[in-house]
């Protein structure tokens, strides 16, 4: 490896400290109480990294940079203030595409001006290692960008969530990926521009093609995966620039994305490869929904629901994706407050993949000021359903489906689910009968004797129940 001129010791120390701040930022997230301090560590770390870089560079272009930071910062700040909590999945996807694009731009800049990065000899010939890292970094960045843009469009509803299945897509994708790798290998021998730009272009294209066939609801796994890749790309750049902060960050982000993808796949009992291969999810429900509607089921009104809950000692609220769609979190919180005022114990049960991204429901409930010590994870609450008088399921479906425990042929078989059926009464709030949900399958619970269906929009239904409680 060619050694670049070593930076002064204090600079390397500063980058190390920045890296440690990032570790502490994630460490803070081990509990809500410490999380805010953690986030501040993250900001401090970033300030140290940026400040150090500014101090050691020639300050000729400092004005332009200050303006660039101000523009970007203002936009970011504005978006962060305005975004609705229900739009978090889209926002993460959008921010994510920016990281990808920035990585491509940095790679391109390094390619055009390698001397500034200290990765080329005096003749302008880029070092072998750096060519490799640059090629991989740009390719991963480009895939992250175009993939995240598609993810954003699908999650935001600008594009149908339906998987779009190009014929022979696996062959096509593998072909392009192979071409990219081959070109990067060639690039280590010949640093001609056409190779660099072809790699970039192909990577943009393959990011697009890879994500298009994946259903909208699988996007969170995709985003985590891309997040993980971009972490490894940052680490690769850290190797090139011998920057500890980047290496540590890369490893943290890489692990985080990989672990979240793993957690999601495990909680959905799906194979990671089958998610990435695509073709699942989206709006597949429509067909399946029609079949089973002729089974008898009980319809309830807001009044019935209010009566049942008032009589109860323990009510467990089970929110799901529909809560986010309906933005019903505030109404639900109000409902819970009224019940508590009448002496009913209220708890919330959160399935690890309720909603559309990890921790989705927790954020929404927190937004509605639900104290986090009333909110329980699956393992901690599942044994309590047997003691509950009412399980109030609002906008959740798959995560309550007992087929996951009993029916080996079900696509969700083996996924851990909430045992809502053990409660004395089950109330289901959703807009229609049948298997309208992520997995698109029917739920036997709708037709059970102790179940009452409350058909309607989640928010409206919760508000009506509140009226009946008052």
């Amino acid at each position, binding site marked *: 490896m060619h050694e670049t001129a070593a930076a002064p010791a204090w600079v390397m120390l500063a980058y190390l400290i920045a890296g440690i701040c990032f570790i502490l930022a994630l460490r803070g997230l081990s509990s809500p109480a410490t999380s805010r301090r953690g986030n501040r560590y993250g900001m401090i770390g970033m300030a140290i990294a940026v400040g150090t870089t500014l101090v050691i560079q020639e300050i000729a272009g400092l004005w332009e940079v200050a303006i660039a930071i101000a523009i970007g910062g203002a936009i970011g700040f504005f978006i*962060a203030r305005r975004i609705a909590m229900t739009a978090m999945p889209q926002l993460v996807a959008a921010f994510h595409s920016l990281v990808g694009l920035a990585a491509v731009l940095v790679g*391109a800049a390094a390619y055009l001006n390698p*001397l500034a990065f200290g990765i080329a000899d005096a003749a302008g010939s880029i070092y072998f290692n750096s060519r490799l890292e640059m090629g991989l970094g740009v390719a991963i960045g480009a895939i992250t960008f175009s993939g995240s843009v598609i993810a954003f469009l699908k999650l935001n509803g600008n594009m149908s969530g339906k998987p779009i299945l190009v014929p022979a897509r696996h062959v096509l994708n593998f072909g392009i990926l192979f071409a990219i790798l081959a070109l990067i290998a060639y690039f280590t021998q010949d640093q001609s521009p056409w190779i660099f730009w072809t790699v970039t272009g192909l990577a943009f294209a393959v990011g697009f093609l890879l994500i298009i066939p994946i259903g909208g609801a699988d996007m969170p796994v995709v985003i985590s995966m891309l997040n993980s890749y971009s972490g490894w790309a940052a680490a690769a750049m850290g190797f090139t620039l011998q920057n500890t902060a980047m290496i540590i960050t*890369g490893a943290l982000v890489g692990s*985080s994305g990989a672990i979240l993808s793993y957690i999601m796949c495990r909680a959905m009992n799906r194979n990671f490869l089958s998610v990435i291969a695509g073709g699942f999810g989206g709006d597949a429900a429509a067909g399946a929904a029609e079949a089973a509607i002729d089974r008898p089921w009980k319809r309830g009104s807001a009044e019935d629901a209010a009566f049942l809950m008032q009589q109860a000692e323990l009510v467990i609220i089970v929110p799901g994706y529909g809560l986010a769609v309906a933005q019903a979190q505030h109404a639900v919180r109000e409902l819970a407050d009224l019940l508590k005022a009448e002496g009913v114990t209220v708890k919330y049960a959160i399935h690890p993949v309720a909603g559309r991204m990890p921790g989705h429901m927790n954020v929404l409930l927190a937004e509605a000021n639900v104290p986090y010590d009333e909110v329980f994870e699956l393992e901690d609450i599942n044994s309590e359903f047997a003691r509950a008088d009412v399980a109030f399921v609002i906008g959740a479906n798959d995560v309550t489906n007992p087929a996951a425990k009993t029916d080996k042929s079900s696509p969700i078989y083996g996924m851990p689910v909430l045992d809502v059926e053990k409660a004395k009464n089950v109330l289901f709030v959703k807009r229609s009968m049948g298997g309208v949900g992520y997995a698109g399958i029917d739920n036997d619970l709708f037709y059970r004797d102790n179940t009452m269906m409350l058909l309607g929009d989640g928010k409206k239904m919760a508000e009506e129940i509140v009226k009946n409680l008052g």
Partner: protein
Amino acid sequence: MDFISILSIFVLSCFVGYYVVWSVTPALHTPLMSVTNAISSVIVVGALIAALAAAVPAAKWLGLAAVVLASVNIFGGFAVTARMLAMYKKKER
């Protein structure tokens, strides 16, 4: 820094990443996604190097564009995380 040092730092960082992410409580997985988003913008360091080097104008402009994008992410990511985390409260007693 020689290659082995960097490799050692990377390998140990992977261990730290593994443990630190598994110790994040599931209730905070959404803030985890947004904060990793923010910190992965540490590539702004590369963008700054490009933006501050005047020699090649095209590279400089690419660098400046990257600085803008990364800044959106940094400020947006930390701010939205802070906003989310501010909502997680214990029951007042």
